[in-house]
């Protein structure tokens, strides 16, 4: 198993809400060559879950194993296995994409002699040759997102984690991204993908988990979810699952 | 017409109100307008007085060490007596004084071989106390000279009071407080004037360093940085209204910061002054100079310099793309702005036709002319006008720069700002 989340819990405190669990005992698995989707509305706990897996946040309880390495006990090994894409991470404005990629490639210990060819390869794959050498401050949102993606995979990690990567992208760039995700799957990577766009999940994910208020409410392949709920479209399934818990709470 | 003006004023008030609320929820503004002044001055005062005491203790326990060359001693008995009598100098015996001087075991060696024509004092330029020793020995030599003279007169056995020649009395005309005062009062006046000027200078500096920058950043730069500028831009009110509203908020916060600073500074100064008799007299005299007129004039000067500072920082904040940029520029401005008014503290500098046109400096000098009761109405008004004008120009520039940078407003028609002089 490439990635295993085991009972991940994260407690937050907010002066208005008091203490609450942003993520509560979230468990899921994702293996090589598989795309796993984490679906949920805004504030469901998707990002927090992914941050715990990427060792940026320490879980209050539970842990996750990435390629067999524990995020709590062996975070440095975990980091070597990961590539992370998110819409809200920034770029170094005064550097060029090529410089950024070289920097992260070197930091992630990608073999030096292979690094430049690798950057060219990624540049081709994501159609970013034209702006590889202009400073990031001059790039458009779509270009920047491509650089973010390229940065996440420059060291060819076995596990790729994407936190709502298509937020704010147009159809064309989203398309490039979707193609890229599928390419990763074909290359045998383990991809975890969070999104609140159902069509995207429907199209890409092999298996998925619906997460709401920090809890996993349902998980499985699309077929399994359809069978369970008796509905066809993921959006309906999602609304149904979320509504159930809302009424449960009431 | 009237309706339009009222509406505009209401808009300005709305914008200013929003900026004020916004600023007050920024912890930096609160820390720098309230917390720092209340704690900084007491802490500064305590450390300053502790440091002074420490230095005093050092001076008492570590006198300047002086040795005399063995064969000239009998020529300078008065100097030896005087130096022995003071605590701040220790006369020591030394076999080889020059070597000890070089080794830093002595601060000075006095060679009286050729006295009284020439008394040579040798000092070590590498010593920490080179200047201190020089000054100390020099001042004591005057006493020694007087003693030598007295000895000579006494030795002659004459009881004629040769020193009794004439008395000098000093009187000041048309002075402070309306009564004629003697020299002592002039010193006190000079002191109290300096005290007020330093306070005024400190005030300007403090509102510049801490009082104005955060409100200005919050009002202008934050719009750019937090990407709310385009929303503000699209509001159906005149853009100059927004700029003026923001500027007003900055001015008010700067005033508040200045007031808190002043209050705390005043409290601390009163504590400090009340502990020393001389200072107390000076302060009492300084306060006596104030009637309603001077207070009003001083307030005008304060208000104007606050306006100017607020305008300077508004311009900086409006022209900066990010906080970082604004802070970079402001540190340069700070350097210039802190050094300039320092000149006003030198005696002889007054508000005249030349200095009245140097911004910032002219305000400190205007304050000086008020506290020294030498206001020239024309020049004073000129200085005030010039300040107002500069503030208005800066505000106008902030208006152009702030909105001009927006890509959406690149068309010339939109760029032209309406009159802001109001």
């Amino acid at each position, binding site marked *: 198993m490439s990635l295993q989340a085991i009972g991940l819990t994260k407690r937050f*405190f907010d002066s208005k809400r008091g203490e609450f669990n942003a993520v509560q005992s979230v468990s899921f698995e994702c293996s090589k060559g598989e795309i796993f989707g984490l679906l949920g509305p805004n504030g469901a706990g998707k990002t927090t879950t992914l941050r715990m897996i990427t060792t*940026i*946040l320490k879980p209050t309880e539970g842990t996750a194993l990435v390629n067999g390495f524990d995020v709590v006990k062996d975070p440095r090994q975990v980091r070597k296995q990961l590539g992370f894409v998110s819409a809200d991470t920034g770029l170094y404005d005064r550097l060029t994409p090529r410089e950024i990629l070289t920097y992260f490639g070197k930091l992630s210990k990608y073999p030096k002699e292979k690094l430049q060819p690798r950057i060219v390869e990624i540049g081709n794959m994501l159609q970013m040759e034209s702006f590889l050498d202009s400073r990031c401050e001059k790039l458009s949102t779509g270009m920047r997102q491509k650089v973010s993606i390229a940065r996440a995979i420059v060291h060819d990690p076995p596990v790729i984690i994407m936190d709502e990567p298509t937020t704010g992208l147009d159809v064309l760039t989203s398309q490039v991204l979707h193609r890229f995700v599928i390419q990763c799957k074909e290359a045998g990577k383990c991809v975890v993908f969070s999104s609140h766009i159902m069509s995207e999940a429907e199209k890409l994910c092999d298996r998925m988990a619906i997460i709401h208020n920090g809890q996993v409410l349902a998980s499985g392949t699309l077929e399994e979810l359809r069978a369970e709920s008796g509905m066809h479209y993921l959006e309906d399934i999602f609304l149904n699952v979320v509504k159930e818990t809302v009424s449960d709470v009431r | 017409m009237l309706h339009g003006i009222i509406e505009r004023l209401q808009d300005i008030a709305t914008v200013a109100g929003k900026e004020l609320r916004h600023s007050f929820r920024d912890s930096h503004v609160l820390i720098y307008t309230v917390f720092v002044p209340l704690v900084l001055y007491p802490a500064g005062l*305590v450390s300053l007085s502790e440091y002074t005491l420490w230095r005093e203790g050092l001076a*008492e326990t570590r006198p300047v060490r002086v040795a005399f060359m063995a064969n000239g001693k009998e020529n300078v008995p008065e100097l030896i007596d005087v130096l022995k009598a003071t605590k701040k100098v220790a006369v020591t015996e030394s076999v080889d004084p020059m070597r000890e001087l070089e080794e830093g075991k002595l601060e000075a060696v006095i060679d009286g071989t050729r006295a009284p024509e020439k008394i040579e004092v040798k000092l070590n330029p*590498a010593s920490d106390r080179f200047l201190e020793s020089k000054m100390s020995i*020099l001042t004591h030599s005057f006493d020694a000279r007087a003693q030598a003279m007295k000895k000579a007169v006494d030795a002659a056995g004459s009881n004629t009071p040769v020193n009794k020649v004439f008395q000098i009395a000093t009187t000041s005309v048309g002075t402070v407080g309306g009564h004629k005062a003697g020299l002592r009062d002039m010193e006190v006046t000079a002191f109290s004037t300096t005290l007020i000027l330093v306070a005024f200078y400190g005030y300007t500096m403090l509102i510049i*360093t801490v009082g104005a920058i955060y409100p200005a950043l919050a009002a202008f730069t934050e719009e750019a940085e937090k990407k709310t500028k385009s929303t503000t831009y699209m509001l159906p009110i005149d853009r100059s209204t927004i700029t003026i509203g923001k500027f007003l908020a900055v001015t008010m916060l700067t005033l508040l910061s200045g007031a808190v600073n002043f209050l705390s500074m005043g409290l601390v100064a009163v504590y400090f002054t009340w502990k020393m008799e001389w200072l107390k007299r000076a302060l009492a005299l300084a306060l006596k100079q104030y009637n309603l007129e001077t207070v009003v004039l001083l307030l005008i000067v304060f208000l104007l310099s606050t306006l100017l500072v607020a305008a300077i920082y508004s311009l900086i904040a409006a022209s900066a793309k990010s906080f970082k940029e604004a802070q970079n520029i402001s540190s340069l401005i700070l350097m210039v702005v802190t050094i300039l008014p320092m000149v006003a503290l030198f005696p002889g500098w007054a508000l005249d036709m030349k200095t009245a046109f140097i911004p910032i400096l002219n305000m400190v000098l205007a304050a000086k002319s008020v506290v020294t009761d030498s206001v020239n109405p024309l020049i004073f008004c000129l200085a005030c006008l010039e300040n107002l004008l500069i503030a208005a120009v800066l505000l106008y520039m902030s208006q152009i720069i702030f909105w001009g940078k927006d890509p959406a407003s690149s068309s010339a028609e939109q760029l032209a700002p309406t009159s802001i002089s109001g």
Partner: protein
Amino acid sequence: MTSDDFEEIKVVFAKDLIEVLRDYRTLIVMIIMPVIIYPALLVLPSNIAQHVKHDYKNKRYNICLIGDSSPAIEFFRKAKVLTLTKVLEDGNPDKLLAAHVADIVVTFPQEFTAQLQTIPKQSPRVNIYYDARRDQNLLALAEVRLVLSQLRGKIVQQRLDALGIKTPQKYELTFSELKVENKKSLASEPVRNLLPFMLFTMLAVSIIYPALDVITGERERNTLPLLLMSATKRHNIMYGKCLVVFLIGFSALMIGLSSIYIFIQLAGQRADDLLVMKFPLDALLMCMLISIPLVVTLSSLSILLASWCKTFQQGQGYFVPFLFMAMGASSVCSLPELQLSSGVAFIPVVNTALSLKEVLAGHIDVLWLSISALVTMIFAVYVTYLASTILDSERLLYGVTDSRARRRLSGDYGLEIMLLCFTTFFLMFYVGQTLQGWDIIVGSLFTQVLVILLPAVALLKHLNLPLVKTMSLKAPHPLSFLGALLVTPLCILLSIGVYNLQSQIVPAPEAFTTMFTRLIMDNDKPLWLCLLGIAVAPGICEELLFRGAILGLVRPKLTPLQQCIFVGVLFGLFHMSVFRVAPTGVLGVVLTALTVWTGSIYPSMLVHILNNSAAILMGKYHLEETFVSYWPATVLLGLVGLVLLIKAKPKKSDRLPESLGT
């Protein structure tokens, strides 16, 4: 350190350097400020002074003489600064001044010439009239007085000659400097005093922006999570970034020092004799060399600071204190005769300031200079490492905090203690001073209750903590009272000893040492009231604040040793006096230890009351020397007391509780 580590540092260094250098603002800070502003700051004041002096020299003050001025007139004519506009037989000085005919009017008696020939019983009076509102008149006034004293000197000399008395013609000193040939790096005293201060300021200013850029910039742009997710060791990232800041800071410093050097060579020599600016090339080179470790340390400190900041705005806020700290560290140079070898070499940052001073004084002590460089470098490495641990703080990254209740439950009362200390300082300054200014004894009594006891009790009430348990208000083993009683003299001896030891470095002036005694002697209050206000009330209230509330709040988080040191140091600082920090600090440590050991606050109250009473009585009856001379007895008693205290150690169940939960 493996080659891998070096590689990582190199990668981070190269990237951040490129990034920083592409920022034009960095270049401004790096080049324009050092080249123009700093030399200007050094030379401008002296130039202004020169200018002002020049102004005075050329300035002419109009002067009017009224009355019989003939004996004095030649002296007034000779005076360069004064222009004699009118010499009148009779006139009204006020009118002349009002009409701006004269800046100063001097009136002489009508028979002045005759009066000077004889020695009358009543000396003739010379009046000087001037306008006090113009500050430059003070100079004219001084000049007039000088002229009159010349006249007086002449008359006296005439009289002495007439009497046939020979007085020493001259008693004048000439100063000469010792030739120092082996001290090539010797700079003149103004430069020595100013340069370290400028250097520190210069560095702080040039370093802070790059530091904020490379650290806070990552946070603000949200690139930090990615950096933290990379497989690189975090401290290596920090070392790389620190090197960038170092390089920028060092370049700025080199440029700044060089331009100061050039400026002094060009402009400095014009200053007058006393303030001559001398800054030899050797000194410049040594300064550059010595400042390397300093740049490293300040870089690491600024990195630490930047790691704490969420935004640039916050960074700017911390910048002023940082600058003050740097300036404060350089103030050590103003202490004469302090040398590196006295142990200062082991205090990072401060030691570099002192190194600079020593070198500029021409004194190069290679051993101690190297030691201080080494200490500073080690400190820098540690600080940078520390900064790397802050980098991934969840609070700073995403604002993740624990709830207040949870924090308190875990025994972390840091924030509350800070608040309490701040409130107490604030009240002490504003309320305490007022009260004590009103009446030293009764005011002190009120201060103790209102300023010291009240906030502490209020805080504990607010936190819902049990007073008795938190403040250790419980009866101890009876023997421990006896033990405390016997130990007291030893405590007093100890603080006297510490005070004397401290006086070696921080001597108190006489005004300070006699102040306390004067306060006691000068008031007419009965002795019992003095003891109540200055011994009993502090003994109770200060104990309840320090050994009660504060000790109670830190107990859950600190080990007993840490508790003693923390509360002791706080107690020392509370006295707000450099001369009392060490003795009261040590006393604080002992009192805390006593409370921790016996599990009760009462023994320490007893010791505190007795200690203060002893100070009053010894001050009043001048018993200190007598007391110290009985030291063997004191030590013996103290040992017996310690034995008793050891015997009185409470059982485990009676010890102070660690958790404070209600």
